[in-house]
């Protein structure tokens, strides 16, 4: 059973990821609420501590690096709420993960339609 062969460049949020990422995802889920986003911005370290993030998760949060956050068990739907704090949308985080400029990433998306 299980998902099957890995698909390159494609994280699968399975049971292992759910266990690994639970604290991180729970914190990011809390960012649905404005008051929680503000509390995070006011004191990041204390907010991460309150949710019991691992050292790797704290480092990934501090780095704002989406691939590191996924490696630390983050799920993209909850991470998107973290990215929202900084006004980043899915194209910004797509560009970051693929190492492209935002313009190059958008051009790549447009190219798929041709």
């Amino acid at each position: 059973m299980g998902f099957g062969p890995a698909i390159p460049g494609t994280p699968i949020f399975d049971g292992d990821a759910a266990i690994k990422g639970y604290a991180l995802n729970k914190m990011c889920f809390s960012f649905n609420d404005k008051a929680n986003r503000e509390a995070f911005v006011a004191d990041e370290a204390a907010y991460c501590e309150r949710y019991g993030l691992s050292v790797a998760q704290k480092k990934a949060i501090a780095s704002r690096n989406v691939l590191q956050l996924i490696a630390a068990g983050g799920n993209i739907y909850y991470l998107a709420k973290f990215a929202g704090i900084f006004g980043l949308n899915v194209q910004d985080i797509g560009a970051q993960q693929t190492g492209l400029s935002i313009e190059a990433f958008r051009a790549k998306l447009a190219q798929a339609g041709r």
Partner: protein
Amino acid sequence: MAQIIGGLTTSHVPSIGKAIAQGQQQDPYWKPFFDAFHPVHGWLARGRPDVAVVIYNDHGLNNFLDKMPTFAIGAADHYHNADEGWGIPVLKPFKGDPALSWHMIEHLVAHEFDITMCQEVQVDHAFTLPMALMYPGGRDWPIATVPVMINSVQHPLPTPRRCFKLGQEIGKAIASFPADKKIVLLGTGGLSHQLDGTRAGFINKEFDLWCMEKMRHDPEALAELSIHEIIENAGSQGVELLTWITMRAALQAAGQGEVREVHSTYHIPISNTGGAVMLFETSGRAQALAAE
């Protein structure tokens, strides 16, 4: 008895909400997608459905990993939208139809779909934006709703075959609802897109067009796919195709005549996504309109 008059499938990317809020519907980037709803508006005005059964996937507004239902149905008087964390405007509350919700729940559990029953559901963009596309202008919603959620967050996800069967029972449930109401079905999400990983930005036009062709004439072919095949071909968030499969199976199983395509649009990109809209109606509905 209730009558399913047709079904709509549409992409639901959050940036549609921003585009609406900023009045960008006629900007060159958005125009092809928003224009796809002109025929939908005319169709809704003629058919005047009473209830929308909205099959969608929550993105972490209502459901968290602490308890993740594979399939869930709302059975409330009202459903509220809420802040999702990244700044799209919160839309007005939606009316529910608890009698229809409970009828569907009774039917589904009797037919071995042990669905999660919800007295409160916060509906996210996957529910609200298709409604805003169908009924633009910010007026009060002229239609009641039943939310049906399919897990697309936590693997293992339900198989396409299981979703097809769920859709068949949803269609039969609605068709046996003893109230003189007209129902429209929605399946929201897709088509191909991937937000996470180094393959982020993956879009597959060829596969999307194949899916749309199967939606028209051979929806059971979509039930033959595996989750792995969908993700490989449509990206990790392309699994939202499950909502389309469920909707289409419901439309067919309702037994209200032939299912005919009224309109379809495919346009790349909207945000990171292959943007797609399909509208279907049943021949029973077409005959009823002709008789009016």
